[in-house]
């Protein structure tokens, strides 16, 4: 049995000079072809066995018919062909044959000696045997990438051609920014589907405490039962996440050299994204100023406002609806700026698919959402509330440990009234927590009695609640019974004993006993509507005053 001579693949040989500078004309699907020797094309050589050989074809005075010679060697079964000479004579039909034969055809413009390639082959084989080839491959191609310029699609397409796999660049919310243009392996819809799966898996891993800041491989299974693995390369710069470079390994052959190339392209994509972000930040500053003026009525005429909005392609000639979202207990969060940025990005991503014009901005620790071109109808309030619910559910998937509350302003038909709707939404958000619990969705019209209470003098409010609840407060302080909370939840749950018991983690009989005790202490009958109203209002005021409204 013949011993296999030492070899390397075509891809591996291209890690080092002189082949590193060569151009791939075609047949890159055969990049795993093995090379153990280098030969120069001679008339009699074509007939011999060229398996595992890199064939050098020179365009010089001795070679009269270069195209014919190339055709011959493309059918010779060689591992790869290196053409030394001007690339202009390499016709597309030759590249097509190389693709068909899966035989890499490389081209170099400058003269090369066979001996140089033999030395390179030996060096690559030695490095490969010592497992050190990957060290040399890392970041060796940055100069070539820099030559492409700052346009993302050619950069990603070049990587996709090299890897023979589709490449997608996404933002931190996994919204596709750019992707390789070749759609033969995965079409646009499939890419979006797989990107959603990556996002889902990513957040699931984060939820269980895995910090995914290093590149990792993710196994994806779609609804049709098919599975694809995806290489996820996070793009981190100065501790800030700019996005992810996703490579869907459709061909199932990503090797360490490919990973090196992904890292290089990732580094270059990061540079492009950083540059874009600088421009976006400047633009955002102007947008934020404009939106501040809009929300605080700081403009001369409605027409001037509509005119200014056209700079960003926003149509403010039609009615707008405003919603405000805020993380509960924001002041307790240590990373609140990062949290708000993440919230803004994801809310924008979620709504962009649903509405034609959506503006999402951060104002004083709250995420303001302005949705354009809306109509007021009977079901409008319910529609915005259900949108708030879907937003909360979406954000809960991404940020599991924080709840979010939503405030909704009233509908106004003109853009000039948006400032009023904004203040109303803020009120609904702030005062809603006295009606409902954390993670509430409150429309301004639902605030009810709280709206009136918020305008009364604090002394009057204090006198009112003390008149009704002073006995109970004193009893709670002495005996640590927390009857006030029981009464508040009881009213919050519309007097439903089972729901109240569930909320308070108490048995229904315990709750009945506690309510009876409250009735005794207050000398009142909770079945009487008038008493219920008075006590319910007193409870609301007590809660408002406790939170220092």
């Amino acid at each position, binding site marked *: 049995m013949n011993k296999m001579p030492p070899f390397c693949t075509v891809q591996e040989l291209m890690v080092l000079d002189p082949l590193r500078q060569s151009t791939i004309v075609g047949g890159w699907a055969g990049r795993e072809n093995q090379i153990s020797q280098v030969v120069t094309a001679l008339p009699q050589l074509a007939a011999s066995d060229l398996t595992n050989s890199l064939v050098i074809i020179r365009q010089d005075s001795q070679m009269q018919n270069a195209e014919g010679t190339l055709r011959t060697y493309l059918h010779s079964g060689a591992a790869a062909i290196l053409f030394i000479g001007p690339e202009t004579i390499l016709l597309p039909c030759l590249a097509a044959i190389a693709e068909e034969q899966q035989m890499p055809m490389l081209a170099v413009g400058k003269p090369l000696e066979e001996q140089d390639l033999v030395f390179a082959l030996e060096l690559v084989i030695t490095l490969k045997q010592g497992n050190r080839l990957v060290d040399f491959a890392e970041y060796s191609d940055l100069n070539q990438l820099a030559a492409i310029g700052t346009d993302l699609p050619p950069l990603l397409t070049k990587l996709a051609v090299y890897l023979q796999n589709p490449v997608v660049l996404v933002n931190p919310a996994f919204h596709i920014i750019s992707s390789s243009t070749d759609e033969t392996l995965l079409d646009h819809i499939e890419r979006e589907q797989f990107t959603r799966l990556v996002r889902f898996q990513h957040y699931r891993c984060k939820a269980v405490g895995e910090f995914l800041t290093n590149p990792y491989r993710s196994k994806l299974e779609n609804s049709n039962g098919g599975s694809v693995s995806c290489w996820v390369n996070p793009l981190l710069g100065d501790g800030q996440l700019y996005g992810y470079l996703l490579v869907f390994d459709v061909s199932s052959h990503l090797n360490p050299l490919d990973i090196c190339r992904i890292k290089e392209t990732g580094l270059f994509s990061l540079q492009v994204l950083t540059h874009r972000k600088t421009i976006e930040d400047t633009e955002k500053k102007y947008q934020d100023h404009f939106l*501040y003026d809009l929300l*605080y009525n700081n403009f001369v005429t409605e027409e001037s406002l509509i005119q200014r909005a056209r700079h960003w392609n926003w149509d403010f000639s039609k009615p707008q609806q405003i919603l405000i979202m805020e993380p509960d207990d924001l002041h307790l969060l240590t990373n609140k700026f990062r949290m708000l940025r993440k919230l803004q990005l994801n809310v924008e991503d979620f709504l962009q698919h649903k509405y034609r014009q959506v503006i999402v901005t951060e104002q*004083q620790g709250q995420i303001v959402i302005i949705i354009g071109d809306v109509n007021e109808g009977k079901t409008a309030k319910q529609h915005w509330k259900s949108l708030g619910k879907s937003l909360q559910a979406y954000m809960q998937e991404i940020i599991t440990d924080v709840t979010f509350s939503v405030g909704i302003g009233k509908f106004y038909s003109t853009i000039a009234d948006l400032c009023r709707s904004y203040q109303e939404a*803020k*009120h609904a958000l*702030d005062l809603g927590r006295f009606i409902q619990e954390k993670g509430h969705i409150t429309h301004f019209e639902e605030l009810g009695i709280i709206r009136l209470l918020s*305008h009364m003098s604090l002394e009057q409010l204090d006198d009112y609640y003390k008149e009704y609840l002073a006995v109970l407060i004193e009893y709670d302080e002495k005996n640590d019974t927390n009857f006030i909370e029981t009464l508040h939840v009881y009213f919050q749950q519309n007097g439903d004993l089972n729901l109240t018991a569930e909320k308070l983690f108490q048995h229904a009989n315990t709750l009945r006993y506690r309510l009876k005790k409250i009735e005794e202490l207050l000398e009142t009958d909770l079945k009487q509507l008038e008493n219920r109203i008075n006590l319910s209002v007193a409870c609301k005021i007590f809660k408002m005053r406790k939170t220092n*409204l």
Partner: protein
Amino acid sequence: MQKQLGFLVDLGKCVGCRGCEVACSNKHQLDHLQYRRVMNIHKENQMLGFLSLACNHCINPECIRVCKEKCFYKRRDGVVLYNSQRCNGCQSCIGACPFQAPKVNPRTKKISKCDFCFKQLDQGLEPTCVASCIVGALQVIDIMQPAPVYVQETLSNFSITQFTKPSIRVILPKKPQCFWRKG
């Protein structure tokens, strides 16, 4: 980070001289208006100090919300101003403001309020009330900037309505020190 100008009142320094009140009144003497007032803060018959109050240029201004004529607006530095040309004198803002900042101008029968002396502010000068405070108890601050720990949003012994997020901060007076001479 956005800017939000507001007032910082040092209760330890304020002696209740009402210099700020007089200066404000003097500035608006043509309209017979005075926007700033000094309140005595007391609890259970115990005098705690003086609090100088005018429009607090709230983060959530009620006046902007209730005014149907959209007279009120907020500048980018957080100062709430009004456009008297739009005002029809409905006075809804007076009822809505928890600090009773808007006043009726007896001459025009329209609304008028503290404008933070914005013309002086734009020239790099202090508002009249702040400039006239001889003990330096009243200052202009940007409340969005981090403040020292002794600067507080609320008073423990005197309630200020918070739901409009007023742009006022206070420094509580230090405990009085007693010096005994050894006999």
